[in-house]
């Protein structure tokens, strides 16, 4: 196996960005050591590995740090490409399809990501939260169309198997459960975005995802309060 087994992930259990890296490592069947970071007291290893942004996730492979979750996902995909023992690809091989995957992954982090911070961390009142929820729903409606285009009738954005866009959007699903509880309805609404609603259930049910995308809403709410108080 190229690169051996020397893999470590610095993450936070609720971080959509760390979650996507862990899902990909699971998909690839790669064992790794996981270290939970305290955002209020960042480890020397984290700060030393990511001096520019000081953020999670960090992938440490053979002692070398790779930063920025989408960059980490592509790195893993390139070091451990599809093939050996049925190991899947995360990015498509065709250059145009790769460009499409990168485009939609960037869209998710841009539009869903900014709405996510607005819905949970930055809103100062319910009005601001509602505005962020509306932005999230608008982005999800666009993604409904993207799903149709990318999946071509198959179960995931990546086709038969989970791909880049799946893990990027999937990383937010734990927090979406919290939003669902707060707003009293499902953010990925089966009436407005039926394809995405089906996708959400399928993604959560995947072996590589279980135990990584959190589902303990109460625990996440406690985490949220702590973060907002920081």
């Amino acid at each position, binding site marked *: 196996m190229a690169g051996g087994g020397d893999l470590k992930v610095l993450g936070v259990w609720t971080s959509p960005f760390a979650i996507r890296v862990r899902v990909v490592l699971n998909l690839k069947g790669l064992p790794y050591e996981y270290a939970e970071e305290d955002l209020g007291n960042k480890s020397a290893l984290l700060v030393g590995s990511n001096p520019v942004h000081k953020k999670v996730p960090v992938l440490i492979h053979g002692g070398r740090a790779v930063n*920025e979750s989408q*960059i*980490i996902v*592509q790195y893993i995909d*390139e070091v451990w490409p599809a093939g050996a023992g049925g190991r899947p690809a995360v990015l498509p091989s065709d250059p*145009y399809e*790769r*460009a499409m995957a*990168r485009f939609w992954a960037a869209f998710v982090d841009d539009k869903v990501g900014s709405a996510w911070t607005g819905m949970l961390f930055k809103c100062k009142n319910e009005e601001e939260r509602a505005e962020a929820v509306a932005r999230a729903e608008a982005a999800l409606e666009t993604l409904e169309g993207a799903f149709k285009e990318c999946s071509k009738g198959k179960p995931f954005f990546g086709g038969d198997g989970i791909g880049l866009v799946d893990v990027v959007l999937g990383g937010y699903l734990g927090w979406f459960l919290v939003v669902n509880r707060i707003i009293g309805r499902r953010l990925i609404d089966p009436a407005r975005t039926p394809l995405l609603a089906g996708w959400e259930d399928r993604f959560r049910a995947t072996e590589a995802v279980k135990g990584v995308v959190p589902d303990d809403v109460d625990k996440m709410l406690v985490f949220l309060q702590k973060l907002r108080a920081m």
Partner: protein
Amino acid sequence: MAGEKKGLQLLDFWVSPFGQRCRIALDEKALPYEYLEQDLGNKSELLLRSNPVHKKIPVLLHDGRPVCESLIIVQYIDEAFSSSSGKPPLLPSDPYARAQARFWADYVDKKVYDCGTRLWKTKGEPQQQARKEMVEILKTLEGALGDKPYFGGDEFGFVDVAFVPFTAWFLTYERYGEISVDKECPRLAAWAKRCGERESVNKNLSPPEKVYEFIGTLKKKFGIE
């Protein structure tokens, strides 16, 4: 399907550093393309059809199929034309080096344009803050460059393509932000000059005085004084 025209077309706006990244990449690969200047105040049917999500330039059309987002376009150019162009790849082949290149290109994207905009759009305290940040950003990038001739090492590469269009904005940053890139980051200034000697860069960057003039016009238009 956006259009059926064969070959490469670039929907762009003359002063856009993001568009210039694509032009430089295309020229580095010696790829012929049709340049289509867009009127951003009155967006064309073709632009709106090709980038319905963001309605922004640049957009690369390849046999009518659109690719959007400048760094995604540059990677597409690098990957789709890797064997046919006979030119060296913009991204290195080693995965770790690629990750480093993507990291720094992403850093340029996250930091430079936004901070630069605040430099000329704001006054007083926010402008002072932007000034401090810009010096920090440029010093960080200078640190990443190190002693290498290019961010890519010996070869002009992905990070160089990502950052070099912003060198045409140094004069504007200097005048509005009272920053001297020559003084604060001499190695970066030398890198900018070195890149400027490449035909692809020389041909595609806007003259710094034109950028400054353009910003002056924008400020008047937005009523910023």
